[in-house]
Structure formats: structure tokens, C-alpha cells
């Protein structure tokens, strides 16, 4: 992968994954795991979490795009991720608009300015 840059992974519903694959981020060949996961009604939380952790552990993934309602299912794994790369971006889905109050990054930023910090 030297000199090729890092991949963009996506975990989302059908439309989100199809859209970003249309954008050209998809990688799939017989030797490697795909860098995307389509979450359907019968996709288990375990499967989502395993895929998310897999993407986090890959050193060739630079950004992970994840629908926010799916991120809520694996929020504990997101909050535990402290490294800068891969960067995790929460995006809305058709049925669930983006809510800044749930975003891990913005929650941490809001939590900075607490009474204890300003004492």
C-alpha cells in the first residue's frame, strides 16, 4: 500500500454505501476484506461492531464513514477510539437526520468547558 494512500471505509445503509461506492471508495478483491458494510434489518450489532473494530485495526484505512444511527449502536467502541487515524465521521441517514448532540467529537468538545476546568 506504500505510496497509494489510505482507504475510506463506510458502514451504512444501502443507499449510503451505494452512494459512496459510486464515488469510488470501494475496494474488494479475493485477497482482502471489503472496506464497506451494508447494514440491513437482519445485520446484528455484533457484526457491525466486529467490522468497525476491523476497520480501526487496519493501517490502510484513513477515514471511516458511519451512519449516526449505526454509530449509536456501537457508541462505546467509538468513544474508546482515541487515535487520530482512522478518523471516524458520523453522517446522517434517510430516516435519521444528523444530531450534533450525539456526535462523539462534538460531545467531547462540549465537555471541555465544564465548571471544573474553569476553576
Amino acid at each position, binding site marked *: 500500500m506504500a505510496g497509494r494512500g489510505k482507504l475510506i471505509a463506510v458502514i451504512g445503509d444501502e443507499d449510503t454505501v451505494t452512494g459512496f461506492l459510486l464515488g469510488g471508495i470501494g475496494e474488494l478483491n479475493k485477497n482482502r476484506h471489503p472496506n464497506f458494510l451494508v447494514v440491513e434489518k437482519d445485520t446484528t450489532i455484533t457484526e457491525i461492531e466486529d467490522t468497525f473494530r476491523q476497520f480501526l485495526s487496519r493501517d490502510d484505512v484513513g477515514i471511516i464513514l458511519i451512519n449516526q444511527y449505526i454509530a449509536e449502536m456501537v457508541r462505546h467502541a467509538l468513544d474508546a477510539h482515541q487515535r487520530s487515524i482512522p478518523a471516524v465521521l458520523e*453522517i446522517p441517514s*434517510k430516516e435519521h437526520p444528523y444530531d450534533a448532540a450525539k456526535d462523539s467529537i462534538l460531545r467531547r468538545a462540549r465537555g471541555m468547558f465544564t465548571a471544573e476546568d474553569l476553576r
Partner: protein
Amino acid sequence: MAARDVRTELDSLILQLLADLEELEAKRAALNGRVEEGWLSLAQARYAMGVKSVGPLQYASRMEPQVCVCASEAPDGLQNLRVVRAGAQIPEEVGPREAALRRRKGPTKTPEPESTTAPQDPLNWFGILVPHSLRQAQASFRDGLQLAGDIATLQIRISWGQRICFPNFLQ
């Protein structure tokens, strides 16, 4: 005097953090807008081609990424993420770190063999003649990917400011 310097630096860091948060909010709104445009275009394409004609059933069995993320180090030491076309030549940055001038004619390099197959345009998965709405969807999501790179860089800067700077200066 030292305390005043620390306060001044802390003030500038807080201002930078607030500016980054504001920029992040604007880019997020833009990304969400692009993604929503993309969904609408996908729905229009499905209406034209059939409900089952735009979805995972059409994904190729082999895919090569057309875009990737390049990480570079900014002057402040933080990672800068840029979304670029895969295989695009990134201009070499000649900055203060370069001790010697670049030679006009560098040493002759043996040409690397080009890859035999270019990455296939994902539009081809859906047929030869695709509706305009599908091309529009592709354009929307490509714009979204560029914004994703900028948002990722901002998030890295904001997280760094939270984790490193403030505990040190507040001590």
C-alpha cells in the same frame, strides 16, 4: 511574565479551537447537504431504472478504489488528510526543510510499468447507458468525499486541542 505568556497562548488556542468548531459545523452542514442530494438522485435513478436496479446486487465482484486519503504532516505536527484520486501525482513540497536546491534534471529514472487495468468507473456496474440522475448522485457523493477529508482534518485538530493542550496549560 511567564504566566502572562501562558494565558496569551491559552487564549489564542481557545480562539483557534472555536474557529475550528465553527468551520467544522459549516463543513458538516455542507456534507450532509451533498449526501442528501445524492440520496435524492439515487431515488430518481431507481425510479428510472427499476427498484432493484440500483443497489448491492449490482456491486462488482472486484473493486479498485478510485479515491484515497493522503495523510501529510502540517507545520504544527498534526495530520492533514486530503482526499485525492488514486494514483494521482501529488506535487512534491519543497519547503524550508529542503537543504539543497532541486536539480533541474534529476537522475534518470527507469520508468515504472504502468498498471495494466485502470480502476473501473462504478457507474459501469449499473449498465452502459445510465440515467443522468445516477451521474448526479456520483457527483454529489464525490463532493461529499472531498468534504469528508476536510472534516477529518478539523476533527484531528480539535481532538488534539482537547487532549494535549488544555490539561498542560491548566496545570
